[in-house]
């Protein structure tokens, strides 16, 4: 399949791995920012193909994982109301709140629906005028344009029964927070390819300069990640700290101006709590005043819900790249996808869930000596 097969090519992967081995002279710690990149790394076993000197640690870029417990409790309070149809992306459904998750609320009769696009919620709102349709608008800059579009269209079309529970988060402030932490080990970043598709990468240039870290905006296929790693290692070995674009087939320096414009009209930057990390200043979006009629936090008066997070789960340290999932004593034992103690175990993109799904709680597999006979064409 075009745009896929050429980025999953074994010969090319071996070629780039060879180049990384020839380039690296000492240990480096790189962080991939996105959950999608983490998933790909573990799914294809990329971290185990890299030379020992190159360590990949997993970043905070799983939108499901970093949505604060408080916001999930707010979502649950709204979703349980009999007058509400609550719409969400699929992987939010199993994220545990303080009490339950959305799947359990659904089994008790709450009207909870999985949508692929926030625009679908507008159809639901039109078809159910007697109900209040609420969309759980989470995510990084990647999902912001579509979420903004839903709110924008609801206002344009006069759909008073549609609202959004907005919990958007932004990547650059999170990168700053990681680099300023006294526990930080990260020396270079594989930047968020899809976030930069929308936002471009100009705003990463001051970060690279201020903290003297290379940031390579990377894609999500194995070859993308290997190439991004090679570019970052080359910079580290040369002592440079620039923003580079490994993903030019999708990402432009200025991003998508039309999408950025819409996001700017609908949302404004605000402080935001991150699950497991705490509050990061100016690290999220909320709806502008002009759209308050579609702001679920105001409509359902859940602004006062204030949840303190339990301290047992180390997902905060995992999200900052300080710990790896298997370094948690509960990983694969008390904490599994069936019984997640924290959100990084729930979402498919969460580092803990990726480690678990691909058997990192089990002894390391050794490929058998004999390989199966290749199937004839």
């Amino acid at each position, binding site marked *: *399949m075009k745009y*896929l097969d050429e980025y999953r090519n*074994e010969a090319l*992967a*071996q070629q780039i791995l060879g180049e990384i081995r020839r380039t690296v002279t000492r240990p480096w710690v790189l962080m991939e920012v996105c959950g*999608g990149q983490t998933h790909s790394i*573990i*799914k*294809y*076993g*990329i971290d*185990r*193909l890299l030379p020992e000197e190159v360590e990949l640690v997993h970043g905070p870029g799983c*939108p499901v994982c970093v949505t604060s417990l408080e916001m999930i409790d707010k979502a649950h309070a709204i979703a349980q109301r009999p007058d509400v149809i609550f719409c969400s*992306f*699929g*992987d*939010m*459904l199993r994220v*545990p709140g*303080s009490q339950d*998750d959305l*799947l*359990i609320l*659904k*089994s*008790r009769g709450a009207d909870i629906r*999985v949508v*692929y696009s926030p625009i679908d919620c507008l159809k639901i709102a039109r078809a159910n005028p007697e109900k209040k349709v609420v969309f759980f608008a989470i*995510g*990084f800059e990647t*999902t912001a344009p579509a979420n903004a579009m839903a709110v924008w269209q609801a206002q344009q079309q006069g759909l008073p029964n549609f609202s959004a529970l907005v919990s958007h988060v932004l990547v650059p402030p999170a990168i700053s927070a990681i680099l300023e932490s006294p526990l930080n080990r990260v020396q270079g970043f594989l930047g968020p390819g*899809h976030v930069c598709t929308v936002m471009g990468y100009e705003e990463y240039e001051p970060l690279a300069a201020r903290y003297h870290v290379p940031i390579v905006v990377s894609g999500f296929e194995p*070859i993308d990640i*290997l190439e991004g790693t090679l570019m970052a290692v080359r910079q580290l070995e040369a002592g440079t700290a620039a923003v580079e674009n490994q993903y030019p087939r999708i990402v432009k320096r200025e991003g998508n101006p039309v999408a950025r414009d819409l996001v700017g009209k609908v949302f404004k930057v605000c402080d935001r709590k991150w699950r497991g990390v705490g509050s990061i200043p100016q690290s999220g979006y909320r709806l502008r005043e002009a759209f308050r009629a579609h702001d679920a936090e105001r409509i359902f008066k859940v602004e006062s819900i204030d949840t303190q997070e*339990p301290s*047992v789960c180390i997902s905060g340290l995992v999200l900052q790249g300080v710990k790896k999932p298997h370094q948690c004593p*509960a990983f694969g034992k*008390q904490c599994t*996808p*069936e*019984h997640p*103690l924290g959100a990084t175990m729930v*979402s*498919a*993109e969460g580092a803990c869930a990726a480690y678990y*799904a*691909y*058997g990192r709680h089990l*002894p390391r*597999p*050794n*490929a*058998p000596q*004999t*390989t*199966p*006979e*290749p*199937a004839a064409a």
Partner: protein
Amino acid sequence: MNTTEVNSSPNGDCASPLGGCPIPISDYKEIVLAHGSGGRISQQLLRRIILPQFSNELLAPQHDGAIFPIGGARVAFSTDSYVVNPLFFPGGDIGALAVHGTVNDLSMCGARPLYLSAGFILEEGLPMEDFWRIVQSMRKAAAAAGVQFVTGDTKVVDRGKADGIFINTSGIGLVPAGVNINPTRAQAGDAILLSGAIAVHGIAVMSVREGLEFETEIASDTAALNSLVESMLGVSKDIHVLRDPTRGGVTSALTEIAQTAGVSMHLEEAHIPIHEEVKGACEILGLDPLYVANEGKLIAIVAAEMAEPIMKVMRAHPLGSDTAIIGQVTSGSPGVVTMKTRIGGTRIVDVLSGEQLPRIC
């Protein structure tokens, strides 16, 4: 069967050495959809609640059906319920599925399917036209598979108490002499064959359910596999294991067999057949095709030297033209399935907890 699991109460393992789970998801107090996913949560329901109550030697192997002697004949018996939504989808409908599913479960026991029963639970308000179409489809599917419906039952429930129609079918068949197909028979060195491209049915149903439109329509692969199995048994009666990778996909089927037989398996991702349009749909939806349901495919585990001749007859059959050897049974860690990824890495392939949920981005 694991006795500790059998003896523990449904809430037995809730206590955490960490001093109590801070987020009390623990065990479910109600049935949730994930209990029907075919993943680990489904297995828990079976192993903790259902199997201990009915424990016997025929149930223990957890095969697609039970095989037992009656008057000198070896009879295979299986049952399945169908709750698919939408009722009609590209390539099939709930009626065809209800015939194929039970015919295939019997076929995976090596049996020649003979007689089926049908139980209909109908929701008040189901259009008569829809019911007629479904029954017609069952008639055609049964005739094509060479089986007869010989008993049945109909119930109607209030509007809102069912999703249009639910169907249960049970079936019996005869296992020919010399055939001994059982998941416990997978052994190191065996080859793993797959009869064609994966994930077609799951994606076909999902594309209609979610209103997704792709450039080419993806039609379900639902089909009765008894004639394919018959042609395979014509080459050798000594097929070790057969399994149709329905709910939970190829991964769940192989992991269950590896666990039952206490063997390991190693797959080659590049050898697993998949259609381009299905691959594209899975990429868009963020789904792993290895976990997506199939309704007209089978996995066969056979001695290595039989792999080629069996593959040859499978490829000559219309339902097996894309058959491939996707891996082998090995003597590694019992119950563990590994896979060489497309770029040469190795990873473990495990069953999912519950339903695969579409990813946010």
